[in-house]
């Protein structure tokens, strides 16, 4: 009895959010359209409450629950807090957008919260099946969210593509897991590691399994050559959902990779390092070069994401403590940048107008110098120009890769970063050097403007003082991986 109580307490944040998602689904039935704002408030309160629970029960030690299938360590807590924060910003940025498009419904909030639970399980999973269940919960919620705007043909097509390819990736992942299970006789992360350390196994079978696992993970992360779904899904989804897909799930995917590759399969490091290396280089090339040809801002950001994933993989492939810390730092920076970037698109869109073409940014400096300035920070941060956070993100992963001996890959990456700078500069060119074609005032609500301002300025402030964030990442990784 005491054991169950302990298990439940460890998973309290997950249980809380899940219950609240149910409450929201039921409450939605009893609410009239003009009272829907209560649902929004309830969702925000849920995230706040979960943050409180996670924060107050936080301990730097590692705690296992549910017979070792679930873990609560520093990394999981830090990542969960980031996920709450990111999701809360997503809900805030997308409120008006949803209201104007008749998507401001309980389902949206319930599905977002389900996806949050999925991410949390991915972050805390200590067993291959737990991890897989978390991933599926996240993915299924996202498929439904993409198709939320039922009458939109483009969104439906995107959802179908996403679902078919996502199911394929899940299948591959599961197949790879089954091979590892076959060789080690365990699903548990710690046991797999122990088993691989203690006695020799048939290397070929393990590597075959590893290939499938890495492929499945790469699909979820969006690394080349498993990136095909991203531009279409980004473009087709309602921007509010694109914002969700492109941001916080990367935190969960990062945790998934750490659990699978670093905690379960460190003895295969030499093999997965090579795989990650190939994907990292290809992602940076394809992401940066293809982005130049885009005219749709959401598609451009999709390719930009692919190149960022390449840089994250640069950190991971170094397979050193520093490399993991810096990769986490990059992921967090990336999430902050993406939230602000899509936040600006949501800010500029209004009823019947999506603001998702590059040309929609034309002359923004004349329409609203402040928001143009915020977008300027976001773009320079994505390009990795100091004094923004994006610079330290790139700087740190390149440092890790150089320390691991990948000198020429680092030189290659910086050359690609120059190509990447071009399309970010083009956005700034449109905002600052061109005349506006659209003079309508910006109608976003005040709370969104303030928070978006803080979000974008944080990129600048953290770019000047990255120490705090860096220490948080060091804390999360070293406490969990030693």
């Amino acid at each position, binding site marked *: 009895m005491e054991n169950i109580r302990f298990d439940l307490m460890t998973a309290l944040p997950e249980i809380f959010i899940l219950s609240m998602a149910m409450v929201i689904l039921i409450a939605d039935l009893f609410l009239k359209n003009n009272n829907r704002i209560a649902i929004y408030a309830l969702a925000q309160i849920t995230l706040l409450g979960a943050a409180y629970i996670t924060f107050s029960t936080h301990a730097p030690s590692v705690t296992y629950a549910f017979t070792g299938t679930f873990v609560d360590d520093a990394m999981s807590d830090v990542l969960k807090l980031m996920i709450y924060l990111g999701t809360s910003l997503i809900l805030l940025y997308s409120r008006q957008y949803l209201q104007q498009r008749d998507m401001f419904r309980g389902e949206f909030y319930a599905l977002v919260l389900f996806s949050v639970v999925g991410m949390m399980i991915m972050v805390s999973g200590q067993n291959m099946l737990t991890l897989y269940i978390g991933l599926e919960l996240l993915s299924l919620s996202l498929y439904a969210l993409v198709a939320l705007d039922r009458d939109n043909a483009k969104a439906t097509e995107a959802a179908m593509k996403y679902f078919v390819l996502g199911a394929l990736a899940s299948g591959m992942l599961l197949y790879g897991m089954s091979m590892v299970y076959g060789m080690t006789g365990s699903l548990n992360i710690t046991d797999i590691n122990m088993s691989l350390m203690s006695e020799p196994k048939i290397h070929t079978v393990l590597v075959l399994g590893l290939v499938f696992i890495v492929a499945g993970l790469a699909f979820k992360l969006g690394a080349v050559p498993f990136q095909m779904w991203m531009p279409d899904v980004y473009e087709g989804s309602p921007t509010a959902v694109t914002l969700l897909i492109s941001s916080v799930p990367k935190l969960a995917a990062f945790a998934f990779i750490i659990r699978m590759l670093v905690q379960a399969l460190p003895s295969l490091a030499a093999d997965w390092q090579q795989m990650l290396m190939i994907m990292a280089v290809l992602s940076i090339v394809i992401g940066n070069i293809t982005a130049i040809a885009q005219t749709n801002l959401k598609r451009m950001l999709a390719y930009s994401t692919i190149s960022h994933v390449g840089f994250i993989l640069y950190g991971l492939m170094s397979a050193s403590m520093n490399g993991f810390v810096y990769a986490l730092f990059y992921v967090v920076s990336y999430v902050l940048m993406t939230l602000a970037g899509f936040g600006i698109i949501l800010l500029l869109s209004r009823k019947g107008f999506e603001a998702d073409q590059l040309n929609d940014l034309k002359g923004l*400096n004349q329409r609203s*110098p402040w928001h143009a300035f915020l977008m*300027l920070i976001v773009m*320079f941060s994505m390009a990795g*120009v*100091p*004094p923004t956070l994006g*610079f*330290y993100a790139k*700087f*740190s992963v*390149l*440092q890790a890769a*150089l*320390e691991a001996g990948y*000198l020429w890959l*680092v*030189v290659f990456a*910086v*050359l690609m*970063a*120059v190509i990447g*700078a*071009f399309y970010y*500069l*083009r956005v*700034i*060119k449109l905002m*600052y*050097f061109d005349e506006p074609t659209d003079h309508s005032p910006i109608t976003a609500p005040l709370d969104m403007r303030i928070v978006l301002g803080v979000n974008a300025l944080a990129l600048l402030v953290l770019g000047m*003082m*990255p*120490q705090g964030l*860096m*220490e948080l990442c*060091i804390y999360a990784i070293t406490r969990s991986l030693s």
Partner: protein
Amino acid sequence: MVDYFSLDYFLKHILSFAIWVPVLSGVFLLFTADENKPDNTRWLALIGGLVSFLVTIPLYTHFNFMDGGFQFQEGFSWIPSFNINYHLGVDGIAIPLILLTSFTTVIVIIAAWEVIQKRVAQYMACFLIMSGLMIGVFSALDAILYYVFWEAMLIPMFLVIGIWGGPNRVYATIKFFLYTLLGSLLMLVAFIYLHMQTASFEVIDFHRVTLPLNVQILIFLAFFTAFAVKIPMWPVHTWLPDAHVEAPTGGSVVLAAIALKLGGYSFLRFAMPIAPDAAHHLSGYMIALSLIAIVYIALVALVQKDMKKLIAYSSISHMGFVTLGFFIFNNLGLEGAIVQMVSHGFISAAMFLCVGVLYERVHSRQIESYGGVANTMPTFAAFAVLFAMANSGLPGTSGFVGEFMVILGAIEANFWYAFLASFTLIFGAAYTLWMVKRVFYGEIANSHVAALKDINQRELLILSTLAVMVLALGIYPQPLTDMTNATVTQLLSQLAQSKLPTGFTSGL
């Protein structure tokens, strides 16, 4: 208890003041400016610029002329996880350039007074912020801090050319940004590599570390791509004429007067002391590139039809003297190169301002649109001819001192270097004076020229200030050479010491 208002506190943190006063006044301007009252903005910017200039004066008055090391040092640990420190300090090479920077910013603000009518606050703020960032580049003693300033200054310059520039500004500014970014990122890789060797980003530690020759050569080449683009050296100079032609007058002035010096200064601060053996090893190539810039680019300048382009090519040619002075490794050459940097700062600023004066009235930079300007603008013509003479290296102007010293230094090294370099005295005079002849002398060419009004009080003020500086430095360069002397001697002895690991014979 620290007394924040004492002179002592100020002197201890003078470099921070020199960096952050202009940056913060620029930011302040952005937030307080009222688009409907541009005059208030202009005055505020001028006050900000003047205060920033005054703050840098004590660097000269409180400088210890005997000490060749770093002075006015200050710092604290900035990002401990990366071993990055906020460490500032200057030597005799950096201070003249810092003073040049804060001085030029004031000139640029005054020069923009009536010319810039749209988005005045953003324009002024860009220049103030850029000024602070460039002073940061000159005073950073931590490689990453230096890099942050170096890159950050691209952002305001990118906007200045892109927003207030000419018709082809987008092409020019993106080219400028990408060229510079490419070089700097390779430099960043070199910094990270050096950090692996020293576990520190301190410039002083970088100076001490021993490196085998092949590593030194790679590091030198990484720095070379960053600095050669900035200076710019032939053949990576092509961004400069484009950027100059499209930039507004203020942008051209800052580019020519200061931004180019960032590259020259960085050679002395990073590339040469960190990889001295590579610098010696490759000095033949560097001298060859410098001589090509001096002779070939001067010939290119000769055929230009656009005045700004002509001055841009003339800048590249003059900066060739700077790199030539660096790589002949003697006292005279190095000091001459530094004098040449400062002098070129004044002369090129003045030349671009002169073109700006004409452009504002006629809206053409083509030489053929003018003729006989001296008849309608006698005062202006007098100034323009003075600066043209200085540009072609007339004795008595600052242009002569630096070039003469470098040529003398080059004779010490190799007669033929000096022989080729002295061609500039012919070609420089040819392209400058020919331009002056076509623009200022002869009959009044057309109705635009006939309608020209002579310069007003404001233009008189900035041109006469610059004229005084050009003449003062030409007649009495002693204060400048005194300042650089100790540092140059120390730098040369540092460069003469091999940094190869002991027992190491051949690198490649």
